[in-house]
C-alpha cells in the first residue's frame, strides 16, 4: 500500500498481460487503475520524447530504469539545477549511465499549461543541459497510470521490471535546495548490488502534476 497514494481513476482496467521480464502491458489510451506500486511489475507505456523519438518501457528490458516526473518551471525541480557544478539529476545520470541504468523524464502536464508547453520545455532542457530524455505525456495517461502527483516524483524499476522504489528524490521537501540524503541514489546502489531496497517508499514532494 502506498501512503498518501491511491489510484484515483477506478474506471476501467484494460487488458493486462505480463511480458517476459515482468513488465505489465496495458492499453495506453484507456484510463486505468494505477498499479504502479513497489513490489509490482512496472506498467508498460509508450511515449514520444520531445525530440520525436518513440520510447517504450519494454525497450529497456533487463536494465534498471529511473523514472522522474518532470516540470521545467516547478521550483522543486528548479532547485536541483541551481548548483551548476552539482545538478542533482545530471550528476546522477553521469554517475550511473555506465552501470546499465536508464534515465527517463516524463512530463504529464497538459500542453496548454505553462509547464507542458513544448517550447518552454525545450528551452529549459537546453538551458540546464538536462541529460535525460524528456517524454511528453500531454494527456496524462502515463502519469495517471503511475499515480504520479508531483514533480519531481521518482520511480526506480529493477532489471526484472519490478518497481523497487517510489517517492521523493531526497529528504528536503522545501523548494529551497536539495537534501543531504538522496533516496534514489540509495535505491540504485542497493538495486545494482542485488540487495533489497531498504527505504523503498518515501513521500513524494513537489509541485502538483498539471493534468
Amino acid at each position, binding site marked *: *500500500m*502506498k*501512503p*498518501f*497514494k*491511491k489510484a*484515483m*481513476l477506478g474506471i476501467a482496467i484494460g487488458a493486462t498481460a505480463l511480458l517476459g521480464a515482468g513488465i505489465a502491458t496495458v492499453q495506453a489510451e484507456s484510463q486505468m487503475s494505477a498499479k504502479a506500486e513497489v513490489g509490482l511489475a512496472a506498467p508498460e507505456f509508450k511515449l514520444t520524447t520531445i525530440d520525436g523519438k518513440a520510447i517504450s518501457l519494454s525497450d529497456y528490458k533487463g536494465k534498471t530504469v529511473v523514472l522522474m516526473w518532470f516540470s521545467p*518551471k*516547478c*521550483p*522543486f525541480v528548479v532547485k536541483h539545477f541551481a548548483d551548476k557544478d552539482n545538478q542533482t539529476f545530471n550528476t546522477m545520470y553521469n554517475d550511473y549511465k555506465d552501470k546499465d541504468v536508464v534515465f527517463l523524464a516524463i512530463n504529464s502536464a*497538459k500542453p*496548454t*499549461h*505553462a*509547464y507542458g*508547453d513544448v517550447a518552454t520545455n525545450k528551452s529549459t532542457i537546453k538551458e540546464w543541459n538536462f541529460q535525460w530524455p524528456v517524454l511528453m505525456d500531454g494527456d*496524462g495517461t502515463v*502519469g*495517471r497510470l503511475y499515480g*504520479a*502527483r*508531483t514533480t519531481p516524483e521518482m520511480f526506480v524499476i529493477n532489471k526484472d521490471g519490478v518497481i523497487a522504489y517510489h517517492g521523493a528524490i531526497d529528504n528536503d*521537501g*522545501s*523548494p*529551497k535546495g536539495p537534501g543531504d540524503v538522496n533516496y534514489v541514489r540509495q535505491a540504485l546502489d542497493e538495486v545494482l548490488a542485488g540487495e533489497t531496497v531498504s527505504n523503498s*517508499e*518515501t*513521500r513524494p*514532494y*513537489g*509541485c*502538483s*502534476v*498539471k*493534468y
Partner: protein
Amino acid sequence: MANPIWRSSAAIAAACLVCTLPASAQTGKGKGMESFLPQTKEQTKTGDELVKVRAVPYAAGGETFVAVVFDIEPGWHIYWQNPGDSGAAPSLEFTPTDDKGAVRYGDMPFQTTGSTRWPMPERHESAGGILDFVYGHSVVAFVPAGGVTQSQGRVTVGADWLVCRDVCLPGSGQARIQATPSEADLALIQASFERLPTSAFMANVDLRASFSEGKLNIHVPGAKQLIFFPDPSEDMVGPTDAFHEGIADADKLSLQYSHESQNAKVISGVLEVHRADGAEAFVQVSVPGPAASGAAEEHKGTE
C-alpha cells in the same frame, strides 16, 4: 440546538473580508480552484510580491500572540502545515534586532511559548486526484509568545512560503512587530482566530473518534458535513485516500490509513464540522494509534 460555541458560517464569511474563493472551493465541495482559474495567465509578480507579511500583537483567551498576517494576492494560495499531495508549508523565524538590524539578545523580553497555531485550511482539489490543504485567501498564523508588546519594532519575523495558482513560486519576507493592527487586519485576525481548531470539549462538539483495523472512524451526531485534515507526518502515516474519504455529507467519516500507521502512537488531525442549521466548528482530533500502549483496550467500544 442553539449553542453559542458553534460559530455561524454567515458570521465567519462576513468577517473574512478578503476571502476571494467561491463558497464551493472554501468548503471543499466541487472541483477546486484550478477549474476556474486561468491556466497560463502571464505571471509578472514574484513570489515575494504575491504574499506580504505583517506582525502585530494579539491577545485572546488569556493568551498573548504574535499574529502574523499573510496577505495573499487574490487567486493564489499558500499551504497549511500539512500541504497535502503537493506544495510546501510556510515557515516562520523570529530574530531579535535593534534599530540597525543588529542582534541584541541580552535585553529582549520576547520569547515564543508554544507551537504556531494555524487556522483551518481548505481542500484544494486538482485533476489527477491531487488534494492539497491550502489557504486561498489572506490568513493569520498565531505564535504564542511572551513580551510581545515590549518587543514592537525590536523583533523581526521572517517567513518563507510557496505560493501557487496555476504555477508555483517560492517567496519570503520580513516584518517587524508593529504596535497595533489596522482595522482591516484586526478583522482578519479575529476571523482567523475564530477558525483555530480547539478541543472537542472547548468547541462543545460531541466528537466520537477511534482508530481500528487501519481506519480512523469519526462520528459527530447531528453533523451535516465533516471534513478531515490529517496532521503532518514525517513517517508516512496518513490517509491513503483523503481525496475521497476526507469529506462526507454525513455525520460519520471513515479514512483508511497507510500501513505505516501500525507504528503510530497517535493518529491526529483537525475536523471541520458543519451542521444543518449552518453552524460550524473546528475541532482537534487525536486518538491513540496502534503503537500506543494499551490502545486497543482503551478504545474498545468507544463508538
